[in-house]
């Protein structure tokens, strides 16, 4: 005999108070949000790390190979950047630093494009804040970036770069870049649910951005070739300003800082504003999509 089968369930002496809202981007519990993001990123990191015999080495091989090719080409074949002036001191270290930063940008953003769709089974089976997914991809990128920057530091120190007080700026510059990457990642992953051609479009965009940022071609070279207005426009690209500032602060003060390249420190407000707008737009778009993401997959 089952008692509760007979007794009509009462309308409730204690009415349930908590209303179930649909899925959301952030959820209510920030601690859980962080724990989830960290766990997902850590898992992916671990899988890459221990998944193959050489583990972490593979994560480094790509930027290093790319660096090797470019470095050989520009210093030995093309002589483009061969000791033009003090700004090109430690060209190798500058190049490697930019490549590592750009690798972080392109891996994190490209990785997040498919992230929500690829984790379909989680999204459809578990109630959790959706934004965890793209942000965990970004966090994974930060893990890799940290390791790669250690390699860059070793390379720079062995090339003769001296530790400087301006190294204290580095967390700020990286933080700036991370906010930008997070904004782009949220935007792309939310858009990809509806527009599947975001992926090839983004691949091309990344290629363009590689040349539209001071990775291969340094700001000093550009400065000589184009008008200052064009240079200022170029520096509006948050990648350009952050990479350049990184080179300035980390490797040599001989290369101009982002502020100098932009004309004035106040002009730095422009790339900062672009980053903030990207982040807010990404957040809002993702937030709006989060409610229906499980249904639209």
């Amino acid at each position, binding site marked *: *005999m089952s008692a509760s089968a007979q007794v009509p369930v009462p*309308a409730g002496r204690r009415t*349930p108070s908590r209303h179930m809202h649909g899925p959301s981007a952030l959820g209510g519990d920030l601690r859980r949000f962080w724990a989830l993001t960290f766990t997902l990123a850590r898992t992916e990191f671990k899988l890459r790390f221990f998944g193959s015999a050489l583990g972490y080495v593979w994560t480094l091989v790509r930027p290093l190979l790319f660096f090797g090719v470019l470095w050989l080409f520009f210093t030995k074949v093309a002589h483009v950047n061969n000791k033009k002036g003090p700004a090109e001191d430690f060209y190798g270290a500058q190049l490697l630093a930019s490549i590592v930063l750009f690798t972080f940008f392109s891996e994190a953003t490209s990785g997040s494009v498919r992230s929500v769709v690829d984790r379909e089974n989680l999204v*459809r089976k578990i109630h959790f804040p959706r934004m965890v997914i793209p942000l965990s991809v970004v966090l994974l990128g930060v893990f890799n970036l940290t390791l790669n920057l250690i390699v860059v530091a070793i390379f720079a120190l062995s090339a003769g770069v001296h530790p400087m007080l301006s190294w204290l700026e580095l967390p700020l510059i990286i933080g700036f870049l991370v906010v930008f990457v997070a904004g782009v990642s949220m935007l792309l992953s939310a858009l990809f649910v509806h527009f599947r051609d975001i992926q090839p479009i983004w691949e091309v965009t990344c290629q363009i951005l590689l040349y539209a940022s001071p990775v291969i071609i340094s700001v000093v070279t550009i400065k000589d070739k184009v008008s200052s207005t064009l240079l200022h426009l170029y520096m509006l690209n948050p990648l350009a300003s952050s990479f350049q500032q990184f080179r300035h602060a980390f490797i040599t003060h001989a290369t101009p800082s982002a502020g100098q390249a932009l004309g004035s420190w106040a002009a730095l407000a422009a790339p900062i504003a672009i980053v903030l707008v990207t982040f807010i737009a990404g957040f809002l778009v993702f937030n709006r999509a989060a409610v229906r993401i499980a249904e639209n997959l």
Partner: protein
Amino acid sequence: MTTTIPRPAETQPGSTQLADTAVAIESVSKTFRLPRQQYSTLKERALHPFRSTEYDELRAVRDISVDIAEGEFFGIVGRNGSGKSTLLKCVAGIYGVQSGRIAIAGRLSPFIELGVGFNPDLTARDNVIINAIMLGISRRQARERFDHVLAFAELEEFVDLKLKNYSSGMLVRLAFATALEVDADIFLIDEVLAVGDAAFQQKCFEEFFRLKREGKTIVFVSHDMFSVERFCDRAMLMERGEMIEIGPPPEIARAYHKLNFGELPHEQADQPSPDHGTAITAAWFENSTGERVTSTSREEALSMCFEVRLQEELLDPVFAATLRNELGHTIVVARSDQHGALSGSFRSGETLTVRFGMPNWLSASRYTLTPSVAREGTGADALALVEDMASVMIHGGATGGILELPMNIRIDRT
């Protein structure tokens, strides 16, 4: 209403009082918009900027209202596409609802399926911890409970084996054990017990009863009438997004079978209600020593038994027992008038126990017993019939056939 399978420790102190509501579902509807022409690329959108997308509306859940009490084991059954999983996802917060509201008292488990997020390339240790964090436990708690999870799943020796090398049964054990560690008052479970060997299933059942004793609320979606009848206090039948019936599980199970297999051959439209007239008061399976069993191994003789309370004088009534397997196929129909035998005459008020003993050649599966009593004659004039009143699980290897008949095997060379 009589249920046939003894339910251990089911009488909770609270069950006689009015229970609090744990989940209140108020006229909830959920409609999916399915675009007729899916524009899934920016290019298409750019080429047809002003063509508005037309949608087909799929009303997956239509105006469902139900209150689920605290400590209740609530079953949702229905055929594929009936909207039961959608409803569960709405309760879990995975889908937002179109209209109506869902209110929850207590902590809700965030998952609806076991083992979600298990990664085949990671070891059991990593997976359990990751899964536990996904389900809302902190990393430290997850570490503390890890040993317990492994012990429950009986997988201690495989702790460092990657999940891709696990059998499906082992996976389910691990998933179930992990899920039980979640601190929640309300569990939502979509089809869980399909896999796993008999011993583990038994363990899961016990664990369900433990949850029930602890006053947890469980909402359970299943095709498996056996588990619904065994665990649920109440059940709801859904079809095409609508609630068709809500009530005691045996009735719901019957309605479900009706929905699936149409009217059953024995069924009479004007079935006498059990309160008046002749009634079947209990049904069970017995082994050769006369013990009641709910599971037994093949080759041990089995009896289909039921108890009848007569309310009128009867001459040569026909007692029958129908045995069906999990799929609803009728395997055996045993009748007391088989081979022209007569059952005799009975007075009103008598209580009889009818036993059909048989050699057990059934292949491993779950079987249900449908007892019936009819007036003398063809057996069509039924006095009482209760669908799937008792069930038994037969263990042992299965060859794939319905029966495992004793064989004389001879191979001659010609």
